[in-house]
């Protein structure tokens, strides 16, 4: 946590949340929920990100199928990030906070990883058009192309997470 963020959390009285979590006083935490929810969304994000870093670190579990989906959510960015932050802040220690790639898209999912989330689930969608190197897929059979596509997409996703300082850990979708 940077000093800038620390001072902002302190000024907003939100450092208390960290103390309560460290002491496992969850009923006391729930008791101040209304007060916490009034905080600005970026402070909630900073708080949730601090908790995420302390409790689960920088590893991001990816439980994603490689199926392409045309579904587009109408969920707005800030409201969603606020929900993610609150989920992290009020969940039990080391909880998994998962966001659905298929619903929110890779862009917002990636940002959610800075607001307390630590797992990506659902089908991967292309980001900004061609997320994969076309030439890698040239001249291969249909079945092989599908397998190659899945592995290239995994690599793409790992690269996106690495760019945000996270480490991807691919697991089978449950």
């Amino acid at each position, binding site marked *: *946590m*940077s*000093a*800038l*963020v*620390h001072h*902002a959390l302190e000024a907003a009285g939100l450092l208390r949340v960290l103390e309560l979590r460290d002491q496992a006083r969850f009923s006391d935490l729930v008791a101040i929920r209304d007060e916490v929810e009034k905080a600005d*969304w*970026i402070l909630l*994000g*900073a708080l949730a*990100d601090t908790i995420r870093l302390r409790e689960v670190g920088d590893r991001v579990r990816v439980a994603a199928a490689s199926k392409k989906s045309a579904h*587009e*959510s*109408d*969920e*707005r*960015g*800030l*409201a*969603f*990030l606020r*929900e*993610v932050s609150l*989920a992290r802040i009020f*969940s*039990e220690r080391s*909880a*998994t*906070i*998962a*966001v*659905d790639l298929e*619903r*929110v*898209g*890779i*862009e*917002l999912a*990636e*940002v959610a990883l*800075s607001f307390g989330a630590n*797992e990506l*689930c659902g089908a991967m*969608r*292309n*980001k*900004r*058009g*061609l*997320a994969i*190197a*076309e*030439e890698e897929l040239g001249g291969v059979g249909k079945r092989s192309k599908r397998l190659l596509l899945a592995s290239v997409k995994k690599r*793409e996703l790992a*690269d*996106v997470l690495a*760019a*945000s*300082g996270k480490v991807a850990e691919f697991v089978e979708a449950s």
Partner: protein
Amino acid sequence: MTTELGKVVDKVRSKERLSFDDGMTLFLEPDLLAIGALANEVCERLHGDRVYFNRNMRIEVTNVCVASCLFCSFAKLEAHSPGAHTMSLEEAWRELEVRMDDPPSEIHIVNGLHPGLPFSYYEALLAGFKRIKPDVVMKCFTAVEIHFFAEHYQMSHQEVLLRLQRAGLDSLPGGGAEIFHPEVRSRISHDKATAEQYLEVHRIAHRLGMRTNTTMLYGHIETFEHRVDHLQRVRELQDETHGFAAFIPLAFHPDGNGMKHLPAPTAVDDLRTLAVSRLMLDNVAHIKAYWVSMTPKIAQVGLRFGASDIDGTIVHETIYHAAGSSSPQGLRYDELVRLIREAARVPVERDTHYNVVREWLPNAMPEAALKVRDRKADRHLRVLS
């Protein structure tokens, strides 16, 4: 917080201009939310909780282009190439005529550099739109197009701008800036206006009384050093002319162009670039989160990372969509209001020159926006133990 970031924070809070090194510190700082919060502070200092948008409409009258920019998926090099199109004047005007029941306040036209059209085509194009709607603001032709017109029709930049201004031109869009640094520009767009020529066109436009926008295409082969250099060049011209109304960071999209092997910039990069732009450009009033380039969701988040403008309704964008943008081609007026309102900002409809058309005060919402608020808040979030 690093010592370097601490110094930047102090400078920002004392309204001191940031240096090249400060810009690099901001791009390299790992704490994204700290950078965002700082940019938000500056944005709120300038604009309070207001976020601007307009009723605009995009038209690309031709995609025939003599330039061979590596990042472009829109241009066709020859008029007879598959997919090449050039609208007749009547076809172009029709785009406005069919929308006169809910007309835009601004028409934004960006084209390829077509070698086969007479200059009179562009003059007639502008005049025709003004005939249909005299008060519509014509924000047309990038500085790259103006420079092409000057070379192709053998006029000075000033002559081109004056003739177009007489025909109805009000403002220039910011496209064509790409990355100013020659190390990058010579590799991605070697056969069009140089950085100096681009900036000179804007300098003259500002002298002629136009306010214009400017951009930066980021996330391809450039480095953070090139981005900071770009921002500094914008800032220098703005010190001289005060003619830029807004700065628009444009995310590179890789689909179907000469740099398709490169990954697109990530959303975190989008937000960081918005924030650094806000912090470096202390003399540019507005930083725009261009929703077509970064998706409406990330643009909304960008409103808390230093952006005070989210562009407009657009209606039918094709340049970014040719490069694989997954954003819709247009947003309805009420969707924009809702997007801004949900960021806890006050939506302000503006004209091209940032005159207020309508401010949506906290208790007011377009009826159509209210109807979509019944969605379940938590349907996209799973909490697993």
